[in-house]
C-alpha cells in the first residue's frame, strides 16, 4: 500500500491522487473480500445518487451509524425538554430530518401531553451524500403531516438565505446564514425551549482561521459562539469520531483508510458482495474518501475531528457537558442489540461512542450553555 502511495504522486493532480486512493481502497477490499465487479470511477464527484425519502429511511436503518446519533440525541433532547410546553429545534444536519419522527413519536406519548414543536432548518446544506430527491419544504410537509397524525402541534421553517447568494458554495452560504442566526430572525420565543442539533455538521465548517475576518476566529468557532449566544437549553453534537484534519496527506490517508474501513466492514458482515445497497452505501462513503484525500484548501470540506477534540472545543466555547442519563444509555444499548453483534458502545469522559468491533466510529455529546442548575 505504501509502495503504491509512493508510486502514485501525492502532490499530483486530483485525479492522480484519487486514483491512487481508489486503487488502494479496491486492493484493500480485494484483500479482505473477493474482488467484485465494482465500477468506482475516479472522478465520481459528479455522480450523485438521489434517494427518495423512504429510501433514505431505509438507508439510515441499514446500520446504526446514523441511528446511534439520532437515538442518543433524541433521548437527550427528550429529557432536556421535560416539562416544557414549547420546543424549538434548530436542526443542522445532513440527513434531511430523518431523525425527527422518532422524537415526535416520543413527544406524542408524553404523559403530560406533547409540547408544541417547531423545527427550523437552514436552507443551505453541503452537497454531500445522502442526497434526497425532495426539497426541504416537502420534507417539512411530510413531517408536519406525521406530527398532525400524532397530534403534536408542529411548525416547520426553512431559514432562507439571501436569495442572491443561492448559487454560491456552501461555505459562503453558511457564512451568510450565520449572520442571520439571531434571536429575532429565528423568531425565538421566550417561552420556548431551544434545542440545537448538530449532526455531522461541524465538520463542514472550516476550522481555519480567517485572516481577513475581524475576529480572527474560524468559522467553526464562530458558529459555536453564535449558538451559545442563543442560550439553548441543550445542544447535541454528533459526528464521526476520527481526526481527519491533519495537513499531511499521508497521515490523512492512513487515518482515513483506517477509519473508513469501519463502515465498509460493517456492511461486509451482512450484505452480500454484490448487494446494490452495499455498493451504494460504499459509494456514498467514497465521497468522503475522495474529499479527504483528493482535495485541499476550500474544496476539502470533510474536516472531521475526533470526539475528544470536539469536546475540548465546546468547552472552550463555554459549553458545559451534559452527561447522558441511564435511560438514554439503555435505549442506545437496546438499539444496538437489534443490530449485528459487533456494534457496541462505550462512554468516554463526556461522550458516548459507537464502536464497531471495538473501533470508535461515531460520537455523540450533549451540552448545556449554562451550568446546570437542577
Amino acid at each position, binding site marked *: 500500500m505504501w509502495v503504491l502511495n509512493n508510486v502514485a504522486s501525492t502532490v499530483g493532480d486530483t485525479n492522480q491522487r484519487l486514483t491512487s486512493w481508489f486503487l488502494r481502497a479496491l486492493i484493500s477490499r480485494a484483500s479482505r473480500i473477493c474482488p467484485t465487479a465494482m465500477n468506482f470511477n475516479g472522478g465520481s464527484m459528479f455522480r450523485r445518487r438521489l434517494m427518495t425519502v423512504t429510501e433514505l429511511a431505509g438507508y439510515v436503518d441499514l446500520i446504526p451509524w446514523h441511528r446511534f446519533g439520532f437515538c442518543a440525541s433524541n433521548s437527550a433532547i427528550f429529557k432536556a425538554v421535560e416539562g416544557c410546553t414549547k420546543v424549538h429545534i434548530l436542526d443542522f444536519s445532513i440527513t434531511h430530518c430523518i431523525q425527527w419522527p422518532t422524537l415526535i413519536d416520543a413527544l406524542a406519548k408524553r404523559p403530560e401531553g406533547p409540547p408544541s414543536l417547531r423545527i427550523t432548518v437552514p436552507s443551505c446544506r453541503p452537497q454531500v451524500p445522502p442526497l434526497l430527491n425532495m426539497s426541504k419544504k416537502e420534507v417539512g*410537509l*411530510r413531517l408536519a403531516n406525521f406530527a398532525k397524525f400524532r397530534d403534536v402541534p408542529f411548525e416547520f421553517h426553512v431559514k432562507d438565505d439571501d436569495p442572491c447568494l443561492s448559487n454560491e458554495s456552501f461555505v459562503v452560504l453558511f457564512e451568510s446564514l450565520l449572520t442571520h442566526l439571531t434571536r429575532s430572525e429565528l423568531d425565538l420565543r421566550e417561552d420556548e425551549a431551544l434545542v440545537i442539533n448538530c449532526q455531522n455538521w461541524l465538520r463542514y465548517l472550516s476550522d481555519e482561521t480567517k485572516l481577513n475576518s475581524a475576529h480572527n476566529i474560524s468559522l467553526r468557532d464562530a458558529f459555536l459562539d453564535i449558538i451559545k449566544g442563543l442560550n439553548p437549553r441543550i445542544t447535541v453534537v454528533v459526528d464521526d469520531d476520527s481526526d481527519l484534519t491533519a495537513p499531511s496527506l499521508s497521515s490523512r490517508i492512513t487515518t482515513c483508510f483506517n477509519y473508513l474501513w469501519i463502515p465498509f466492514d460493517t456492511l461486509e458482515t451482512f450484505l452480500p458482495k454484490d448487494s446494490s445497497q452495499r455498493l451504494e452505501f460504499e459509494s456514498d462513503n467514497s465521497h468522503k474518501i475522495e474529499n479527504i484525500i483528493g482535495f485541499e484548501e476550500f474544496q476539502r470540506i470533510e474536516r472531521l475531528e475526533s470526539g475528544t477534540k470536539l469536546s475540548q472545543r465546546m468547552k472552550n466555547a463555554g459549553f458545559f457537558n451534559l452527561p447522558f442519563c441511564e435511560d438514554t444509555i439503555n435505549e442506545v*444499548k437496546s438499539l444496538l442489540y437489534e443490530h449485528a*453483534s459487533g456494534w457496541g458502545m*462505550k462512554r468516554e469522559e463526556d461522550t458516548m461512542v459507537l464502536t464497531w468491533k471495538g473501533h470508535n466510529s461515531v460520537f455523540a455529546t450533549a451540552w448545556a450553555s449554562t451550568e446546570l442548575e437542577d
Partner: protein
Amino acid sequence: MPVDVYNSSTVSGDASVSSSGNQNPPPKFTVKKKRSLPGMPDPDAEVIALSPKTLMATNRFVCEICNKGFQRDQNLQLHRRGHNLPWKIRQRSSKEVKKRVYVCPEPTCVHHDPSRALGDLTGIKKHFCRKHGEKKWKCDKCSKKYAVQSDWKAHSKICGTREYKCDCGTLFSRRDSFITHRAFCDTLAEESAKVQTDPSSEPDPKVMAVESSPPPALQPTPPPVSAPAPLEVQVSASALPQSTSAMTSSVMPIQSSELAEDPSSVVEEAPPPAGLNGSCSGGVSSVSNGSSSSSSSVFVSLFASSTASVSLQPPAFTSLIRAMGPPDCPADLAPSTSIEPISLCLSTSHGSSTFGNAGQERQQYVPPQQPAMSATALLQKAAQMGAAASNASLLRGLGVVSSSSSAPRENLQWGQRQVEPNNASVAAGLGFGIPCDGSSGLKELMMGTPVFGPKQTTLDFLGLGVAASGSPNGGLSALITSIGSGLDVAAATASSGGGDFKDIKEIMTWETINCTGYSVAEEHNGDI
C-alpha cells in the same frame, strides 16, 4: 474513571471493574443490572476449576456396551438397565453437600478468579461458550450470531415476531425504523390528502379502511394502484349511490379476508376470482344499487385486487363508477350499468369486441318472469341441476349470490332457462355449484369465446373450485348464509318496481359479464 463497556454480543457480561481477591464476601457494588452481580460466591464453597475440554464436553457419561453418551450419570444408569447391566442410581445424599463453584478456565476472564466464580456448572459452561467460544449459531432472519444454542433458539423465537406493518405493506422488525418510515411514507401523505375520517392504524389497514369508509367519501380521481385500500373505499363510496343490499355487506365478510391479503397476492390468483367476483359484484350491485357499504367496495376491491390488469382498473373503475353513479334510470338499471363496468374492469384481458359477442350471446337468454324464490331453494335447484348444466349451476350460483330471498326464484328459473342457451358464460362466472368439469365445462360454456381468461381459477371462488361439485350446495349455502338476510336483492328489484323481467335481465347481464368478463353493459344498456 471507570470505563463502562457494553458489547452487544455478550448477554451476560456486565463488568464491575473492581473485585476483591480474597474469599471473603466482597462488598456488593451497585450495578446497573437489577439482578445481583454474578460471581460473588459463598466463601465456604469449594472452587472447582475445569479445563475447557472438560467444560465443553457433552455426554461425559458413556455406556460401555453401546458407547452411547449421556449428559447425566442418572441417565446412563437408567440406560444400563436396558443392557441388563448392574446399575445404581445415587440418591441425593442426605448430608449437607458442599457447595461447589466453578471458575472460568480462560485466564483473561474476570471469572477466572476464584472470588468471581460462578455457582452453577451449566452457568459456567454457557458463560465460557458465550464469551470465549466461537459463535456457531446464526439467526437466519437477521445477522445475529450466538455461541450458545439455547441463546440462539431464544432469539429465533422472537426474531421477526414483533412486526410493524406500514400501510404500504412494508414490514419492520424495529419500531424506530417503522416510525421513521411511516412518517415519510407516501401512504400517510395520501391519507391526509383524502378526506378520511378514519386514519387506519397499522394492522389491517386495508380492511379497516374498507369497512369504515363513509359513503360520501367519493373521490372521482382514482387513487394510485399502489393504494388498494383507498381505491376500494372510493369505489364503494361512488359505486352504489343507493342502498346496498345486505347481501353486499354480508358478502364482504367473505371477501374481506381476501381483501386483507396483500392485493398483489390476490392479483396472482386473478383469473378465477376475477370472474367470480365479477359475478358476485354484478349481482350485488344489481341488487343493491345504492348501498355504499363497504361490502360492495369489498367486492369491487376484490375485483380490483384480483384482476390481473390492475392498471386497467382505476381509470375504468372510476368511469364505471361514475356510470353507475347517477341513478337516473330505474334502480335496476343502475346496477347493471355499474356492474358491467366493474366486470369490465375486473375481467382480465378481454377486448371490447368480446363484449360485443358476449352481449349478443347474452341476448339469447330471455329471462322469464319468475316469482321470487328463497335462496335455499335456489341452492337446491342448483344442486339438482348438477354437472350437466354447468353453466346453469353457475347461473344458479350467480343467482343465489345476487338474489336475496325475495327474488331467488326468478333467478333460479332464469338460470334454468339459461342452461340451454348459454351455458358458458354463466358457468364460467361463478364456478361454484358447478360441480363439473372445471375448465372443460367452462370452455364449452363460454360458447367458444376464447376471451375467458381465467377458466380454472374461476372455480376457486370461496374455495369451491371444481372440487365443489361434491358439495355445491354447501358452498352455495355458505355463501348464501353469509350473505344472509342482508340480501336484499328482492328489495332492490322490488324498489325498481319494474317488471321482474328487467331484473332478471340485469342479473343476466351481470352474469354474462362476470362469466365472460366482458361488459355486455354497453350493448345491454342500449337495449334497456
